[in-house]
């Protein structure tokens, strides 16, 4: 590998200025976001998307000539993209290429974007022809991953991803037999009760039921996957799931155990035993307003700070004391990045505003408003308008976003 420079900071912003016409917008965006993830998975770098204003790294597509770039492109083939070294941040793609994803045709946007981001982060071209940072595009690879030379290069610039720190004294490491388990039948998203729901990394909303998980977007549902196919080592029939943008950790709860992942990789030492909160939780959510994780069971909740040793002597507290109008014993819960909270129970859900009060007109039907189910019998519950949930958050961030709200005042309110 070759090092061309480095950023003097490790938390970088990026902005996608335009997208290619050859791919659906969400596919192109997903490819670009994934490209950042390859690097943040192996180095202590974080990337946060901004939708306006200045960003450290700016991605755009331009043709043969651009008033904003002195390096011309050459039409289809040959030069595909170029990027500036740190700390300039321009990443340009030739808009005349056939940008594709998940196909051997055309040029894979995700792989080329990862290569150019390597330049933007300070890597030059690698001598290894199989490395991502090799100068010549070697084609689409369905199981693409960084070459050891790419990893060594980025870690030479920014160090290795540091060991995770946290409130690990709270739990005791346990061993769970990893024997094969019989998956439950594939559930119908339009009926029955959810086990858990989570606003996960990159603004994706996941629903869990039995042995299966699927994503939900404004336009429809993703395919159903077995939970263990996405999160290796994780059982089905979960009690609760929550993602913390603050730490990028995903927590799954079942029985008296907790599993912790970053993206789809389990943290070392997990699963652990839940010692300080009750077993068999009902639901969990992360509230961005105070950056705390809330755990629910029966009519009570615990408020947990992941990064400090939480004093649980005043917990659990009654749900109704904080979440006005929310149901006891919820089956699932989640919050949006703007602080709105949703509780799920049975076939219904409740929407709470930032003041944690249930909005008028709730509960409503989960199947109709979240699962895109259209029953033959007309649904009499109101839906749509600006109170309808959006399955995807408005701010898609690779590493999550944090709220600017003054935490001390919120904590006072909570206590």
């Amino acid at each position, binding site marked *: 590998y070759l090092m061309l420079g480095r950023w003097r900071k490790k938390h970088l912003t990026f902005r996608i200025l335009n997208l290619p016409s050859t791919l659906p917008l969400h596919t192109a965006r997903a490819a670009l976001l994934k490209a950042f993830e390859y690097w943040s998975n192996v180095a202590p770098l974080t990337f946060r998307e901004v939708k306006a204003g200045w960003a450290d790294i700016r991605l755009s597509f331009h043709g043969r000539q651009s008033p904003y770039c002195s390096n011309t492109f050459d039409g289809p*083939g040959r*030069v595909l993209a*170029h990027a500036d070294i740190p700390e300039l941040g321009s990443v340009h793609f030739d808009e005349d290429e056939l940008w594709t994803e998940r196909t051997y045709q055309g040029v894979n946007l995700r792989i080329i974007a990862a*290569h150019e981001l390597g330049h933007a982060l300070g890597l030059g071209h690698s001598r290894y*022809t199989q490395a991502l940072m090799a*100068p*010549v595009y070697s084609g689409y690879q369905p199981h693409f991953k960084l070459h050891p030379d790419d990893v060594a290069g980025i870690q030479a610039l920014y160090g290795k991803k540091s060991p995770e720190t946290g409130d690990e004294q709270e739990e005791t490491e346990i061993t769970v037999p990893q024997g094969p388990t019989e998956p439950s039948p594939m559930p119908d998203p339009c009926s029955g009760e959810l086990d858990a729901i989570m606003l996960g990394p990159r603004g994706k909303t996941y629903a869990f039921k039995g042995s299966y998980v699927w994503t939900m977007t404004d336009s429809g549902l993703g395919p159903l996957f077995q939970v263990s196919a996405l999160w290796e080592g994780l059982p089905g029939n979960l009690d609760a799931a929550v993602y913390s943008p603050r730490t990028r950790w995903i927590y799954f709860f079942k029985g008296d155990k907790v599993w912790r992942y970053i993206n789809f990789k389990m943290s070392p030492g997990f699963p652990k035993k839940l010692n300080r909160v009750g077993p068999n939780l009902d639901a969990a959510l992360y509230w961005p307003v105070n950056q705390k994780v809330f755990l629910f069971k029966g009519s009570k909740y615990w408020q947990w700070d992941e990064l400090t040793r939480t004093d649980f002597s005043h917990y659990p507290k009654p749900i109704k004391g904080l979440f006005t109008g929310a149901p006891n014993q919820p089956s699932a819960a989640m919050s949006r990045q703007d602080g709105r909270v949703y509780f799920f129970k049975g076939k219904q859900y409740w929407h709470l505003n930032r003041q944690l009060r249930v909005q008028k007109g709730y509960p409503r039907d989960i199947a109709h408003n979240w699962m895109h189910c259209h029953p033959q019998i007309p649904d009499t519950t109101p839906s749509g308008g600006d109170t309808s949930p959006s399955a995807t958050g408005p701010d898609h961030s690779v590493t999550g976003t944090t709220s600017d709200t003054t935490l001390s005042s919120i904590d006072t309110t909570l206590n």
Partner: protein
Amino acid sequence: RALGPAEKEAAVDYLLQYGYLQKPLEGPGDFKLEDIKQALRAFQEASELSVSGQLDDATRARMRQPRCGLEDPFNQKTLK
């Protein structure tokens, strides 16, 4: 077959564009044949091709492959 001047010129342009040939700051603008051969050898070695210093079919095919627009850092010194 004998290469035409356009093919030779395209190859020199490639070597120049991607950093295998360095335009001298002083003296005549033309490259010496030995400079071009040395640049070809560096390109072939970095591309895991047979190192001949000749503009053969494999080398020209490699030069036609889609790639990144940034320069390569490979020369005899860095490869060594």
